[in-house]
């Protein structure tokens, strides 16, 4: 599937369709679900709409998840698995990310369904936007061309711009959307400009071709350096790494809670998929340059994120800063690269999915009609109001802080191991020292959760529905820590397709 120049354009052969559709099957599944959802939203009677769309979304995401798992297990992801003239792939790296996003989508739909009902929002639109964002993420995960990368990125972003402003009664939500929109558009322009320059330098948008062309001729072209710089800046923005992080706390805080939860995990994971594909695969021969850039970004993120988190009093905002710090940790794995580094990143992203989403999900149970109730004072005595939630929140916080034997610890262990092996010990040392700071604020959350209450306060009703979800994430946080090897093996298999091509 060599790239086609302007002169010789082969006709698309229908026989390829099955293969191509198969390669992006999870995306297709979610897209179909999205379409059904939109239609159902239009036709179903009003009181049923929300639940119906939620059900459809869950089902569709489950199908997507199943498809991805099936394809992975069938071994169809082991090769390059390119589709659509090399614009997409169904390789194991993509499949793993699709699994992650499908899972994230399911969790989000469940949590959001309960949340919007308590807050009195329209429901079906939120699910539709979630689905759209999931599509964008999956596209990013499976993109092998700069064009698809950009389109995935924009699909994801546009869906989230709207989702952030979903609470239209709330000035904070609006502010969040506006800020995200403007700064996101600004960053998109940078990414796009970088892509254009890389295209100019290599004559292709396809990552595999770019990689091989760079290796043969113009590795040091100023165009490529500029491309790395501009894309790197944009990518760093997307993973909310400092100093391109400043939107994160404001947007996270203003957005409705399930959106924040979804975004905190999903955007980050999708952006890392993108970084690894573009930098770790397409521009692998410019390693030193982008590694220097990302190392700077990683160090700044870990320091700034962790330091600023300690003065926060809103859980959402705190988790936003913690997310900045975590982006720094994960970047260590990206910088380290190789199978170890990429596997560690994949592992950590899954870990982050469960622990960070879980934390948000616990907080989401507190939401009432008038607000998200995400302030520390709202958490006061949570553990006595509901021991279940208290214990789960403790687990998530400990895992985020990197305490063994929870999954967060092993994630860090693998990332740091990759980093040290790649010679970035200084970065790892910064990471661990910053982690010490992080423990301070995670424990501050726990202090509030476990501070005895002067009087019993009941929890808002109607959170039964998501208790199962919470238990599930909690179980994963523990189980994937104690039995870390299988997930890590997934990570290694995901790294496999990126190592061979382009060299």
């Amino acid at each position, binding site marked *: 599937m060599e790239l086609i120049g302007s002169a010789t354009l082969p006709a698309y052969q229908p026989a390829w369709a099955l293969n191509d559709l198969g390669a992006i099957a999870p995306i297709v599944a979610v897209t179909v679900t999205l379409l059904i959802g939109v239609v159902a939203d239009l036709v179903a009677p009003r009181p049923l709409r929300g639940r119906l769309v939620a059900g459809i979304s869950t089902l569709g995401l489950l199908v997507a998840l199943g498809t991805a798992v099936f394809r992975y297990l069938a071994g169809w992801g082991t090769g390059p698995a390119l589709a659509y003239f090399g614009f997409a792939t169904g390789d194991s790296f993509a499949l793993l990310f699709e699994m992650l996003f499908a899972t994230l989508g399911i969790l989000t739909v469940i949590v959001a369904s309960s949340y919007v009902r308590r807050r009195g929002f329209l429901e079906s639109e939120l699910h539709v936007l979630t689905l759209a964002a999931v599509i964008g993420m999956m596209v990013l995960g499976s993109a092998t061309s700069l064009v698809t990368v950009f389109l995935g990125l924009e699909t994801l972003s546009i869906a989230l711009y709207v989702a952030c402003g979903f609470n239209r009664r709330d000035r904070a939500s609006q502010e969040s959307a506006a800020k995200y929109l403007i700064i996101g558009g600004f960053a998109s322009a940078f990414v796009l400009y970088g892509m254009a320059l890389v295209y100019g330098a290599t004559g292709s948008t396809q990552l595999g071709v770019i990689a091989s062309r760079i290796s043969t001729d113009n590795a040091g072209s100023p165009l490529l350096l500029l491309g790395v710089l501009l894309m790197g800046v944009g990518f760093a923005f997307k993973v909310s790494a400092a100093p391109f992080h400043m939107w994160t706390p404001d947007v996270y805080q203003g957005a409705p809670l399930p959106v924040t939860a979804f975004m905190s995990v999903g955007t980050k994971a999708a952006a890392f998929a993108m970084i690894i594909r573009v930098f770790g695969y397409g521009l692998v021969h410019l390693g030193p340059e982008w590694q220097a850039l990302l190392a700077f970004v990683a160090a700044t993120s870990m320091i700034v994120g962790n330091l600023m988190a300690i003065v926060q009093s809103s859980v959402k905002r705190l988790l936003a800063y913690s997310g900045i710090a975590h982006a720094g940790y994960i970047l260590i794995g990206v910088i380290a690269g190789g199978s170890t580094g990429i596997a560690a990143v994949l592992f950590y992203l899954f870990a982050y999915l469960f622990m960070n989403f879980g934390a948000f999900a616990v907080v989401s149970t507190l939401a009432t009609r008038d607000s998200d109730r995400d302030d520390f004072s709202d958490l006061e005595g949570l553990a006595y109001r509901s021991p279940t939630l208290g214990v789960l929140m403790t687990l998530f916080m400990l895992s985020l802080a990197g305490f063994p034997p929870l999954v967060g610890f092993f994630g860090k262990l693998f990332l740091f191991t990759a980093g040290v092996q790649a010679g970035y010990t200084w970065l790892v040392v910064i990471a661990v*020292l910053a982690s010490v700071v992080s423990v301070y604020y995670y424990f501050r959350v726990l202090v509030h959760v476990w501070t005895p209450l002067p009087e019993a306060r009941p929890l808002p009703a109607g959170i039964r529905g998501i208790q199962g979800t919470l238990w599930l994430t909690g179980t994963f946080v523990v189980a994937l820590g104690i039995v870390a090897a299988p997930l890590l093996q997934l990570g290694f298999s995901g790294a496999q397709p990126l190592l061979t091509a382009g060299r």
Partner: protein
Amino acid sequence: MSGILSLIWLLPAAGGVLCALLPRRLTRVAAILVAAGELVLTLIVAYSFDSSHHGYQFVEQATWVPQFNVGYHLGVDGLSVWLLVLNALIALVAVLATPARTARLSSFLGLMLLMEAGMAGVFEALDLVLFYVFWEGMLIPAYFLLWLWGEGDRPWYAALKFVLYTLAGSLLMLVGVIGEYAFSGAHTFDIATLAAHQPSPAIQFGLFFLFAIAFVVKVPVFPFHSWLPDAYLAAPTPFLLMFAGVMGKTGAYAMLRILLPLNPQPEGWWNWNAVLPVLAVLGIIWGALLALAQRDIKAVVAYSSISHMGFIVLGIFAFNAQGQQGAVLQMLNHGIIIPALFLLVAGIQARTGTRDREVLSDLAPRMPVMAGVFLIVTMAALGLPGLNSFVGEFMTLLGAWQFSPWLAVAGAIGLVLAPVYMLRLFQGLMYSRTQPAHAPEPVTKRTDIARGELALLAPLVALMFLLGLYPYLITQFLPALGQGMQVLGSRWS
């Protein structure tokens, strides 16, 4: 017998979870049963331990994370077997010492058992990652116990200070752990394998620092001790027994198990092996000096603990059999004495409502038996020959003397200061400050030590005598410890 080591950490871990779920009236019995079962298990291990066999016994080995060669590798040798027993014993005492009226008793006991599990794991683990898992695993219950059940104005501060301080160390150790994996060339976390693949001295210099910082904070070694007074003062007594009695030993244990075998030649800009013994000696003197200045009796004991831990570290860094075996003895001794002291302090506080030395006096006539027990424990604590602490101090100093006589002499100053602060404490509490002409009337009110408390102290006191008169019981399990280290020690000058 295979599997018994897993059982040793699993039993309290599972028991802890169970206790946390049980209703209040059942939880105490359950916890006692678990702790007692644990003690029996460890005693079985100690009993069937083959002292003629060098190397690890009861080994359990399985792959854990094969991609990074992380193994689930457990085993005990003479170094760890008695520490396991100590852990189980002190845990049992601590569980028994937990008053039934404790708030949220189920959670308290559950966390205590979890902490016991963590410490048991630390003493068993032979894989660096596994070790680290247990190492941090014991920290979390400790944090909650210290914070939620702590005494004083701001237990949260003490708890947080303790956790952050120790974490700063142990996270750096994590880098060290990874460094061992990456730089030793062995690409494994297995301690025994790593000991056979030592990286160059320059790398050891760095790795040593990373490991040492974790251990010196945990022990703690001067000047990394400032979390200790806060934490000990805030700690609730049953927790404090384990906290002071066992947890500090994990740091010293790790020095012997990991720090020295893996990085015996940490030479870069300077030689770390020469730095630590000096800090140890400074700690001996510093702890003793500050113990003199305290008004709070708990603080006196806390600072005395710093002084005592200095002997342990000094012995370890003497690089010879006497020093290191003495250090092991001293770990056990301190693990017996300090819980006893804190039990007594708690008993006094419970009866008088204060811990202020300036206020307390004349207790001996009111509680003669407690005075007697306190005296024995005091004597043990100040290193009276014939009681257990003397053995450890003698051996560590003997080791240190061979390493560098000046260090031993300086350390011996601690021996002189110990009676000063311990006797001031004891006499100040027990005796009068005035000079009446006649003996005080015996107090008839039942203020003396309770039968239950005495039962808790009795085994500890018995051990003080036993280990003082027959320390070979312990050291016969350690014939190899410290042998062949002289080469390293002689570098120091």
